[in-house]
């Protein structure tokens, strides 16, 4: 059972504070914040999501720069509390459209109202936006979305994709549109995060795709929806080890290691024709999470060359090649590489005609950073960095530098080849034809090349 719930800003201000059981002292938010801010325990500088101070257990998750915190004295399930904190954030976002410090401050009475219904005396009552609608009466005060930095995975679609109405993903599930009528639409996002490690010789050491099919429905009357996935989709790898690739690369069936589903999903016909049936609840929720270690074509190849030039100088040549089709463009690409600690200066040389590329030497943590606004499929980009050392390097520079890591976002592309073949909405009438958006995006989770 949860004793208190509160939301703290980055500076440690209470934005919302709700005490449910009165068995934890009032100053807990301050104790918590000080502990997190100055965390120092067995070499760690980052506080774990759960810790105990004087018999009080503090749980926290970070959402859009805010700290969502729960306290309890009881020995309860940490997964439950952390999941709940995450869910409170999601419900709040459903209501407010945009979740950030400003929107919570403007709507704190509404948030209190939600909190009252979500938890009673420390016990979770409901986190369903659907159920909450019937007992929450405040109306959200919308903040101007245009000036807000894009947040969350769905916000990716706001930029560079004219086809999608940018405001849709940030609109509240309860607030009415200015015109009075709500637009009938449903969003299905296939979001994949890639973790991949190349060995120094360019061979793939480990790779994994963690995917989510996320849904956000603004359909009235809760119609039933059928979502069809690849017919040849396989789940589970039988007795084989997850890394026993076999010859299944390139084409062929999509094999997921495992997946799980949202409560509302019916799997009656899933085994037969790979369709999911559900009545989507209001708000944003993951229909399905999946994990895949089957071999796939990595979207980027990274090539690193380090040449020593005398005892006080070296040159690093970074090459990035996009291995996806030309009609696809990756954006917000950042390549990072730690260089030897005794590097004092770095000068960069971009390829001729480079557009939208920036370079930086992060002096405090001795990293070079290369940002590329866009990378078109099939293209290759090179960066030359000349390092100057403060003192002579002893031995092997490659042991003191690297690995190269990369972050990127590739809209309308997914590596797993998992697809939503169709999205069927049970028809209410002939004229009923809501907007359906099925969108794909691939992001780097941990994309690393050793040198």
């Amino acid at each position: 059972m949860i004793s208190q719930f509160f939301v703290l800003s980055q500076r440690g201000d209470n934005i919302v504070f709700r005490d449910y059981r009165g068995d934890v002292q009032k100053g807990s938010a301050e104790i918590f914040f000080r502990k997190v801010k100055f965390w120092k325990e067995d070499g760690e500088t980052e506080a774990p999501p759960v810790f105990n101070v004087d018999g009080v257990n503090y749980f926290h998750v970070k959402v859009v720069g805010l700290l969502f915190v729960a306290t309890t004295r009881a020995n309860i399930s940490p997964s439950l509390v952390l999941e709940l904190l995450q869910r409170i954030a999601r419900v709040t976002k459903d209501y407010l459209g945009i979740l950030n410090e400003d929107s919570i401050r403007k709507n704190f009475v509404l948030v209190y109202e939600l909190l009252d219904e979500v938890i009673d005396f420390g016990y979770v009552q409901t986190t369903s936006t659907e159920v909450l609608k019937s007992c929450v009466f405040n109306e959200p005060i919308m903040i101007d979305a245009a000036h807000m930095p894009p947040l969350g995975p769905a916000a990716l679609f706001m930029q560079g994709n004219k086809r999608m109405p940018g405001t849709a993903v940030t609109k509240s599930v309860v607030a009415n549109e200015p015109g009075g009528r709500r637009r009938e639409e449903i969003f299905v996002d296939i979001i994949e995060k890639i973790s991949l490690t190349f060995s120094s010789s360019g061979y793939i050491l480990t790779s994994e795709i963690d995917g989510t099919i996320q849904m956000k429905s603004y359909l009235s009357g809760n119609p039933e929806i059928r979502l069809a996935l690849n017919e040849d989709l396989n789940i589970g790898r039988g007795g084989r080890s997850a890394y026993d690739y076999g010859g299944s690369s390139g084409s062929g069936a999509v094999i997921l290691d495992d997946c799980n589903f949202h409560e509302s999903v019916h799997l009656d016909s899933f085994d037969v024709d790979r369709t999911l049936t559900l009545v989507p609840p209001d708000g944003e929720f993951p229909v399905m999470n999946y994990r895949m270690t089957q071999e796939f074509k990595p979207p980027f190849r990274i090539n690193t060359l380090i040449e020593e030039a005398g005892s006080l100088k070296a040159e690093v040549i970074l090459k990035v090649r996009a291995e996806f089709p030309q009609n696809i463009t990756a954006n917000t690409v950042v390549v990072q590489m730690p260089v030897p600690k005794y590097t004092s200066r770095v000068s960069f040389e971009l390829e001729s005609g480079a557009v939208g590329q920036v370079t930086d030497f992060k002096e405090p943590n001795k990293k070079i950073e290369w940002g590329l606004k866009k990378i078109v499929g099939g293209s290759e980009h090179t960066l030359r960095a000349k390092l100057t050392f403060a003192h002579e390097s002893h031995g092997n520079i490659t042991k003191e530098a690297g690995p190269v890591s990369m972050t990127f976002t590739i809209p309308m592309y997914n590596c797993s080849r998992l697809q939503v073949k169709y999205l069927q909405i049970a028809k209410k009438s002939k004229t009923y034809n809501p907007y359906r958006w099925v969108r794909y995006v691939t992001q780097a989770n941990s994309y690393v090349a050793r040198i």
Partner: protein
Amino acid sequence: MAPPAQSQRSPSPSQPSGKGEVSDLKMQLRQLAGSRAPGTDDSKRDLFKKVISYMTIGIDVSSVFSEMVMCSATSDIVLKKMCYLYVGNYAKYNPDLALLTINFLQRDCKDEDPMIRGLALRSLGSLRVPNLVEYLVGPLGAGLKDANSYVRMVAAVGVLKLYHISASTCLDADFPALLKHLMLNDPDAQVVANCLSALQEIWGVEASSSEEAAMEREALISKPIIYYLLNRIKEFSEWAQCTVLELVSKYAPPDSNEIFDIMNLLEDRLQHANGAVVLATIKLFLQLTLSMTDVHQQVYERIKAPLLTLVSSGSPEQSYAVLSHLHLLVMRAPMLFASDYKHLYCQYNEPFYVKKLKLEMLTAVANESNTYEIVTELCEYAANVDIPIARESIRAVGKIALEQYDVNAIVDRLLQFLEMEKDYVTAETLVLVKDLLRKYPQWSHDCIAVIGNISSNNVQEPKAKAALIWMLGEYAQDMQDAPYALEGLIDDWEDETSPEVRLHLLTAVMKCFFRRPPETQKALGSALAAGLSDMHQDVHDRALFYYRLLQHSVSVANSVVNPTKQAVSVFADTQSSEIKDRIFDEFNSLSVLYQKPCYMFTDKEHQGPFAFSEELGNLSIGVDDQRVEANDEDLLLSTTGKEESLSQQTQGALLVSLDQTEPAAAHAQQTNLVIDDIFGLGLSSPSPSPSPSPSPLLKLNAKAVLDPTSFQQKWRQLPVSTSQEGLISPQGVAAMTSAQTLVRHMQGHHIHCIASGGQAPNFKLFFFAQKAEEPSNFLVECVINLSTAKAQIKIKVEDENASQAFSNLFQSALSEFGMV
């Protein structure tokens, strides 16, 4: 809602002084209180919002209490809610003012809108003012019977609130019985869940003082209730499912068919996207199959994929919670995860606490076939720019080396670490090389060659320095420079801040002296002189000890500092297996994250769902030896006086109870039926149909619970029903490496240890067991002497009829272990 007035624009975190603003608010509220003008509600809303925003940032606005109450006469539900929130926050500190609110809350409890009834009832319960409880009883009673499920839902939790304000009022009104009725009959699953939560809490607290409550608590995990809840599992919200699953994990099905039924029913819960549901299901599966080794192992295989999926989906925080549980399972059964080692590789952007868990798991799963790859991976981390992780990785490599797999290659790698010339890498590696040499002295030659080249100037960390010095002393004859290196260190004695290093220095120079006397004599002299004048007590004492030892006899001194050493075969594990078992029992709780059983971090009344076995744990775990012994003695003292006088009675009882099993079984059958009737549950599956073959065997409760105090009480009160002495077979003697092995064995037979003490060859253990169908206890004292290979057993029983059956059962269990 009207756009916010400027008040909302500046919810300034820079704290306003408060005073002026609050009295301002007070004025404005007072003006609005009586007003019925249109638009009043909107102005009220703005003012209320201000009040609550002050409350949130910690300004005391309790002084406007009466004004808030005056303004509460409204039909605007948003206003009402704000008012309730305010009142709930301040009533506790203004009990007199709180009385003001009773009126309107009670009135709202009778409102025709169920939403308002529910809200008012919830607020009424949140006042937390003891002398107002009388006003709570009526509305609660009505609320539990309300036609609307929202109101009943609130009322169920309301009962719990009342219990915490005034337990006696709650019990006198017989609310628990009402809750139980609701729990078993309400069509709304959330009402059922709230009743269950409330009852668990109430009976959990009451059980320590009331026999009846203890029985009620037990009844919650009886078959009819468990099956009733399981049959409705899909109706519950995901959160309530967690509550139910947690309860079910305490239930011990009498036979394996039932276990499989439950597991099949809940199989799909493992595919739930909510990690809490999955973990609760996993806990249940693990607990159910504890005594079925094969199935238990299958469960591990089955839960691997869902766990890994949870780890990689969701936020880093959620993934950490799941990963901690995976960590626990990997540590328990590393070989089952050996082929999944690649999933445990660290990602560069993971936080330290995640990487640390992964490194520990990688270390644990290393075996002959994967060591090479794991160590290669770890070496990558060692070269990492992230220093804490680099350190952890080197330690991990060392640990794997100590586990014997492919030591050869690993030693090479460790030595390569030393060539990296990074201070922290060198430091960690030195400590490891020292440990390795203690286990594998045969590697000394290769290691020493490299160690000899390390300048002690480059080693600053005390642990590493101590390790280096130890090696200089231990391998003085193989290291050309050893005496001189030591001499250099002794010269810097004054600057050496760590006493640990100075202690090692003394010992090392002694060792070196005996191996290379002429070269070391001078160094030894100055070391002893420095040591004798050292301010640190231990250093001083050791120097003095060596000095006198040398005066006494040089050869004795030699045998003291340079004895023949045996290679260390196993380094002691830091955590006892008992503690690990307890943490496992507390699966899906904070214990797993903290890696401590809950009594170590939680005070007693908050141990929640695990309170059942709590005190027991304190006892049976040998964490605190003294405590165990103290309790042991308590038991002893209290029993010895009475045994003689009772023995006669016992003999008699034995004679009477020759034909014991039938009545016992029949009795059990009966009680079960009675329970069924009381509940009036129309359940199909769980009804204990009069089985055609009532087993003549005594069935014990696999999850029997008894706290030490009542054990002690019962032991004092009951006569000895059986007293026997037997011999232990040689196998038994061999198996009895610690009391724990026997404890584990008996547990397999549903006989639980409540206290154990002693060391080889003498052990003393107290066991207890319970009948499966009724809370009838069997208590056993077992004294074992391994040197004489004798075991003495005293059994006391609550139900004399089952005495013989239990005695047989106990002895057959013992004989399987090679005793009696």
